[in-house]
């Protein structure tokens, strides 16, 4: 049987779908871990980034935090968290490691969100802010009804970057003893079970692409109608400038 045939066969085996180690459970695990990490990171990071951007103080911190975040390997972060928060050295290796994985993923997700929300707030045209004040808006209204809506697309870009990154790194968490879809890859590697390895890679890749495309769509929808790029206003900016700090890999 061809290799692809073996992979298809692996997927068709209903035993691989059921139970605690099955595809369904692993997928749910992966999604819950990723979702919880991104949400937690957002609760921590967004207020910080928005506040720094709104008050205009500490901008260097907001920018540097993403550079530092990029320099720390996510794999090292996972292993460090695993040793700080303990993995089971004992025989029951698999199944532990949810806490270290969560901590590492939250730490990983924070920098892009802080930086992007900061940049988003900073990029609000000062004239627009002035105009809002001139119309008699109070500070709160300026923040909630002017600055935040204008900054929203970039804030969403930060969430998207973090989310894609977290889904990818959650795969690596299988190495430090956690579950998720990465288990199929890590176990496939360990057992030299290549159909399982390949099936795991397919599932992880598909999940990542779904998350990326979904959040890209959400990001587009979050752009206020007046700010959507028109035909005449389509400018791409280089990766690494403020607008596209949105790129990090795991």
């Amino acid at each position, binding site marked *: 049987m061809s*290799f692809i045939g073996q992979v298809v066969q692996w997927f068709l085996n209903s035993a691989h779908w059921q139970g605690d180690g099955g595809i369904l459970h692993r997928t749910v695990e992966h999604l819950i871990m990723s979702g919880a990490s991104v949400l937690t990171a957002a609760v921590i990071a967004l207020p910080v980034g928005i506040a720094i951007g709104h008050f205009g103080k500490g901008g260097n911190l907001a920018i540097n935090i993403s*550079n530092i975040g*990029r*320099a*720390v*390997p*996510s*794999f*090292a972060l996972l*292993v*460090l968290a*695993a*040793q700080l928060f303990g*993995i089971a*050295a004992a025989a029951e290796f698999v199944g532990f490691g949810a806490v270290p994985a969560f901590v590492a993923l939250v730490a990983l997700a924070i920098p892009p969100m802080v930086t992007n929300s900061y940049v988003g707030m900073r990029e609000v045209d000062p004239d627009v802010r002035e105009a809002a004040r001139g119309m008699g808006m109070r500070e709160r209204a300026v923040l909630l009804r002017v600055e935040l809506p204008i900054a929203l697309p970039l804030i969403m870009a930060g969430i998207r970057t973090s989310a*894609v990154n977290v*889904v*990818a*790194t959650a*795969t*690596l968490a299988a*190495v*430090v003893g956690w579950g998720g879809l*990465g288990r199929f*890859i*890590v176990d*496939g*590697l360990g057992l030299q079970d*290549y159909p399982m*390895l*390949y099936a*795991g*890679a*397919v599932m*992880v*890749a598909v999940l*990542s*692409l779904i998350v*990326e495309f979904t959040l890209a769509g959400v990001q587009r929808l979050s752009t206020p109608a007046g700010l959507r790029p028109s035909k005449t206003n389509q400018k*791409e*900016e*280089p*990766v*690494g*400038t*403020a607008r*596209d700090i949105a*790129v*990090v*890999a*795991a």
Partner: protein
Amino acid sequence: MLATGVVGAVEDPWIRWSWISGHADTILAALIQHIQLTLIAVVFGLVIAVPLGLVAWRSRLFRGPIFSLTGILYTIPSLALFAFLIPFTGLTILTAEIGLVGYTLLILVRNIVVGLNAVPDEVREAARGMGFRPFAELARVDIPLAIPAIIAGVRIATVTTIGLVTVTALIGEGGLGSLIYDGLLREFHTPLVVGTVLSVALAVVADLGLAGAQRVITPWARARVTP
């Protein structure tokens, strides 16, 4: 080997200096391999990204597909990408490098295109008026002016690659990642800390070095603030 403290008789400190001095060779070898893996990835990434970037810049038809493909490659988690390759290329440096090169492409291609797009039309007009042929215009006007954006891309690609190289420890390569992995497998803190610290330091040094290189080769851009 039991000196690693796994047994629990002695608390394992975060840094055991005696291990470091006793394993200087191992650490140096890991560092050198890390630099080699990174260099190969970024150089090959550039070799592929420059023509791709030029095509994407000149041709609207190919721009979409090139951006989509490199974007998809970038989105697939590294472990999955390696897993896709292993049945064919095995646990080899080739598997590691194909994956690492793949991750640099999106960053490099995008910055090349953006840098070239940012060249003002008047400059190009002037070059043509001075009698530059298309190739000379590209080589002596367009590309030099795009250098700051391109180097910004190389910096991000390099820092990202340095981080990703650690993951290749799982497929038998790894550079400093092999120290980190070793620390995980033996639950021994010192190699983990050494690998992490050196990896971060390498990323910082590479980033600063490239930033310095850019200042040297594009003196005209110094006045401007580069990202």
